[in-house]
């Protein structure tokens, strides 16, 4: 890796709608994230934190400014190239889990490897390993309907990390879970950051969850209001 940061945002804007109905979700965000960091993005509803997350995850495109990922200007690349970036470098965990219904945990976790063209043997091996890492050994053949919320989120995390991503993007990963399950999930994410060195970007509105992060970025009304390392004085 060069000395260039993993992610660099420069005057990033995002607007929805046109003309008078235009809503400016991001009003010029500058942000730099280094490899290995664990960043919590906080902010009230409608502040633009999810919008920023979606743009960082190449799920959405900015309307202005620049987004460099590993030195590549994302605003200039094609739809297919963004898909390939997601395939090779990014892993997603959503608030609503977003697992394929009526599909076993193993097959859900295998999915990213199928798109990466891995052989059946490699897929099985890595999917089982990922499920074991999130503590779901023995649950491989269960479908989402047969799993609790916490277990479903673990499957989603296994799916996100099975392809060894550079970044794990988590959008309110504990939003649908109770307190103790939330803590377990946060421990898991923290361990992935610490032990495997996966950069974690997490959107949350709960201060308790943000405490697990190394760095907290607050967004209010489409601009960064504060950016501090946990443990530093406010």
């Amino acid at each position, binding site marked *: 890796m060069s000395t260039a940061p993993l992610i660099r945002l420069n005057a990033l804007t995002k607007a929805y709608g046109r003309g008078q109905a235009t809503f400016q979700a991001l009003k010029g965000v500058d942000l730099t994230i280094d490899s290995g960091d664990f960043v919590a993005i906080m902010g009230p509803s409608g502040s633009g934190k999810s919008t920023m997350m979606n743009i960082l995850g190449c799920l*959405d495109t900015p309307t202005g400014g620049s987004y460099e990922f590993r030195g590549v200007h994302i605003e200039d690349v094609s739809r297919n190239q963004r898909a390939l970036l*997601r395939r090779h470098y990014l892993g997603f965990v959503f608030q609503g889990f*977003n697992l394929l219904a*009526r*599909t076993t945990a193993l097959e859900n976790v295998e999915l990213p490897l199928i798109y990466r063209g891995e052989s059946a043997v490699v897929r099985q091996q890595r999917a089982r390993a990922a499920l074991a890492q999130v503590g779901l050994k023995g649950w491989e053949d269960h479908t989402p309907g047969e799993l609790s919320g916490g277990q479903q989120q673990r499957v989603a995390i296994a799916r996100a990390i099975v392809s060894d991503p550079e970044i794990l993007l988590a959008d309110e990963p504990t939003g649908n879970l109770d307190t103790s399950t939330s803590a377990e999930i946060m421990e898991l994410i923290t361990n992935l950051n610490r032990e495997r060195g996966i950069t974690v970007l997490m959107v949350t509105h709960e201060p308790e969850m943000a405490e697990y992060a190394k760095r907290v970025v607050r967004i209010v009304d489409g601009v960064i209001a504060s950016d501090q390392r946990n443990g530093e004085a406010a």
Partner: protein
Amino acid sequence: MFWNTLLLSIRAIRRNLMRSFLTILGIVIGVAAVITMVTLGNGATKSVSDQISSMGSNILIVAPGQRFGPGSGGAPSFKLADAEAIENQIYNAKWVAPTTSKSATAVYQANNWSTVVYGSNNDYFPAGNWELADGRDFSDSEQRSGKAVCVIGETVRENLFGTASPIGSQIRIKQFSCEVIGLLEAKGQSAMGHDQDDMVVMPLRTVQRRLTGSQDISRITVSARDTNSISSVKKKIELLMRERRNIGENEDDDFRVMDTRQIADTLTSTTRILTLLLGAVAAVSLLVGGIGIMNIMLVSVTERTREIGIRLAIGALEREVLLQFLIEAVVLSSIGGIIGLILATTASLVLSGIMNIPYIFDPGINLLAFLFSAAIGVIFGFFPARRAAGLNPIDALRHE
């Protein structure tokens, strides 16, 4: 990429068994209905032309009037002398059977049966492809004197005599008794559903004297010596009849000479129209099946849009998602099409057996129905997916 996508498609089909089943069912019903209807229609057409050729292929029928069907439309009837003229003057006329007919009730002991009595000569049997199962045909003296003797069809025998042999028995027709001298080999139903074995044949003179009470004959059946001579025989008969009936140069014929091919054409064109009608009815069921598929696909669009969002988010390319949905649609509609083909073949075989018509495999309609079903499956399975796959991944994920 293809094999991986195939794997994904098969997993998606397995995952949504009910949806897959309903899709397949819609196609199965449509395909099976269309193919069965058309196959049965073709069988009926074939059966009609077979029956006509069983009449004998070199047959000409001479009848008064210009209209096809019974009744002479005011034109004078033929007489026996006309038939004799054809027999004597036209070399290639092999058999000449002047015929008249009348409905009558035949009675034997306590049994009676309503049938049709034909009056003709011995040429009537070979010309109509009739064989004697028992007994003999008419002798010359019986024909000349108009003796009350008859040859009966199998249906008449069955209804009057049950299991007994009829030969030598006396049956009563109207006011006279008639000796049964022969029994015809059974032919079964004609193409039009008419029982050909339901008849009694007597010498022409007998019927003229005792039943119709006139010298008229309603038609003359002529058999040409071979296929090549049909048209020359037909022309000669026309000339001869115009002469005998004193028809002037500029006048139209007041009689008609039909060959069996003409009759066959008329009948097969009728059954062909019926086939088309049946096919149209069946096409409606294919369409209804298609609408069923469309419904299922549209209902599942929400779930599938989110599925597409998930796939895009974890790095699937748009074309991979599309290929998956395309394979899914093709696999489902092919399975439906194949089951439909099998079902149609089975149903056609069984029904044509029951309806007593031949089974004819028509590759054209099989292919057409199959392709149409595949098209329906692909259109309704693929196009909603194409719209979803074109969305931003995040919009697809958030689709409610």
